[in-house]
């Protein structure tokens, strides 16, 4: 009942012209960003962040959340029409969605994806509403060792779902290391400024996020070539048939539950959720052989999962202050820039903020359903915008966005350097999300580590003698070591056979 009262308060805050406008802008931009190649929700949020400086944090966060889940809807359009996933989380959708488009059923695929996304997004938001407050309540009992273990687990989890765990850990530690530049938060010592006064403030999160997700992503997209993708079919009959609805009811529900549960896990996120949902549907289907040839359930389930996962990923970010994905790491950085510290205290000190965001997600999902059913053909037009025209505008936005943050040309030079680093990271499959997460979480990580060691008089045993931190560290070790051990066992068995 208490949650419903808070939710009503949240709706009262969202139902103001400004907040509704920001919600609409967020989902509209998210939809566009999801559909456009070469720019993801992380870059979109990072580039737009300077526009919100000095503004209302609630309105800005409503917009950022809208971009995040709106991008999941938008990515579907490219997956279905041109078989190029706008987002990695829509890879599975492209398999059967594109086959449906080839059979002239692009409209039904997009329509069912929108309906599935709406149902899952709404159910995911209910899950967020129910799961986050008790988790935040439990986290009130966390001390420095538990927070240290949580950050370690968050970084390790994000690294473990990368193409290579070692590469993920390398970028995560690099992010932590870069964050130590500037003034030491506890003793006031200057660290690693190499005589440059402008480095006293450290490396701003926005500079790194825009450089890696914006400039680096543009350069990486250019390096892959940008031939025009032909749209193979017109979008007609967006409203699915009764038979389609019957076929998709359970897959949407299963996708929603899987998506939310996977999304809550640090590091897992929407992409893995959509993979699992697809695999589960294939497993339970009476006709698994049809999967891959244009089955509507194979579009509905992963779409439901990726939307539900984006709501689930906000649970650890809001309740613990530990983001589970690259985009939520960027959102966390945005909240910190607004002077808000996500975590259990946020639920106690800024109740209205949390519940306004949750309420806005219900409204945003309704907006997206309306935008997607009748207006899907309009968004498909975005696919005809040549990348050659798009990327100069994205780069100009990156430049002015970084400059406006601190009116400093030095930050622009940093953006160039990290943009090139981001390009090479993308090219050689070094994941960027742990880098950003490391930079964002380093202050919490370092304070927790130093406070813990001060409490224990320098003994590392404090991390393994307290049950919660010991459990978290054990889970971290398992996440890293178990898959490797299993691979080793398999290869040994194969060698002996």
């Amino acid at each position, binding site marked *: 009942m208490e949650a419903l009262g808070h939710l009503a308060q949240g709706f009262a805050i969202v139902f103001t012209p400004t907040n509704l406008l920001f919600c609409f802008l967020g989902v509209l931009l998210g939809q566009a960003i999801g559909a456009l190649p070469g720019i993801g929700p992380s870059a979109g949020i990072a580039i737009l962040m*300077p526009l919100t400086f000095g503004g209302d944090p609630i309105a800005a966060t409503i917009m950022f959340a809208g971009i995040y889940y709106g991008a999941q809807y938008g990515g579907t359009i490219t997956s279905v029409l041109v078989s190029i996933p706008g987002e990695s989380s829509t890879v599975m959708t492209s398999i059967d969605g594109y086959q449906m488009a080839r059979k002239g059923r692009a409209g039904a695929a997009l329509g069912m994806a929108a309906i599935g996304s709406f149902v899952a997004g709404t159910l995911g938001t209910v899950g967020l509403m129910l799961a986050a407050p008790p988790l935040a309540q439990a986290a009130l009992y966390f001390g420095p060792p538990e927070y240290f273990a949580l950050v370690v687990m968050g970084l390790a989890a994000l690294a473990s779902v990368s193409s290579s765990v070692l590469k993920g850990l390398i970028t995560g530690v*690099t992010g932590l290391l870069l964050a130590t530049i500037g003034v030491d938060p506890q003793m006031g010592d200057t660290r690693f400024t190499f005589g440059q006064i402008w480095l006293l403030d450290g490396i701003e999160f926005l500079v790194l996020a825009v450089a890696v997700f914006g400039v680096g992503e543009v350069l990486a997209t250019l390096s892959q070539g940008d031939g025009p993708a032909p749209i193979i079919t017109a979008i007609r009959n967006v409203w699915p048939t009764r038979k389609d609805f019957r076929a998709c009811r359970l897959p949407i529900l299963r996708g929603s539950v899987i998506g939310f549960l996977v999304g809550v896990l640090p590091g897992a996120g929407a992409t893995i959720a959509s993979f699992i949902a697809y695999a589960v549907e294939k497993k339970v289907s009476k006709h698994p052989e049809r999967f891959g040839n244009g089955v509507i359930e194979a579009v509905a389930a992963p779409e439901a999962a990726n939307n539900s996962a984006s709501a689930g990923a906000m649970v650890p970010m809001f309740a613990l202050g530990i983001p589970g994905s690259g985009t939520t790491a960027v959102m966390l950085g945005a909240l910190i820039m607004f002077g808000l510290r996500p975590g259990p205290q946020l639920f106690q000190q800024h109740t209205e903020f949390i519940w306004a965001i949750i309420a806005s997600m219900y409204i945003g999902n309704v907006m997206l359903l309306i935008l997607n059913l009748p207006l899907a053909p309009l968004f498909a037009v975005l696919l005809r915008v040549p990348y050659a*025209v798009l990327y100069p505008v994205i780069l100009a936005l990156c*430049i002015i966005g970084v400059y*406006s943050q601190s009116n400093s040309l030095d930050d*622009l030079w940093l953006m160039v350097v990290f943009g090139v680093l981001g390009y*090479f990271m993308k*090219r050689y499959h070094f994941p960027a999300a742990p880098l950003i997460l490391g930079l964002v979480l380093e202050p919490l990580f370092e304070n927790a580590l*130093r406070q813990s060691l001060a409490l224990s008089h320098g003994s590392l045993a404090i991390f393994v003698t307290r049950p919660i931190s010991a459990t978290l560290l054990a889970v971290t070790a398992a996440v890293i070591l178990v898959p490797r051990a299993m691979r080793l066992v398999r290869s040994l068995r194969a060698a002996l056979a």
Partner: protein
Amino acid sequence: MSWLTGERALALALAAIGLLFALEARELTYMDEFAPGAGFLPLWLGLILFALVVGFLITARKPKAEQDTLRRSERKVVAVTVGLVACVALIDWVGFASAIAAYILYLTRWVEGRRWGLSVGLAATTTLGLYLVFHLWLGVPLPMGPWGF
């Protein structure tokens, strides 16, 4: 194929950063009574980063040969990056608006080979839009050129 591929070079560059930070951290306080000092975490992070890269280099598989198409498109990446460097360098001299407009014109006309009309139009409208939003609406003090904008 030589051992030093791009992937390994990137890993080695990150290892070098780790070593540099670890060496610099030795100048800072390691332990202050029982509490770690300012150099404690960076020293360990630098060493861990170095160790992770060594582990990666030992276990990394032999990379696949890169295709020619990647090499061709790399020229565009270099052109865009060189333009970006020139744009940032020019901002102080010619002002924000002129540098951004010149960069967009360079990208669309010369790097992408689009028509003059489209290139000039895109450069002008994007620059004007950014100037209106960031300078006039949000009040960001953009650097001005000798011609007053």
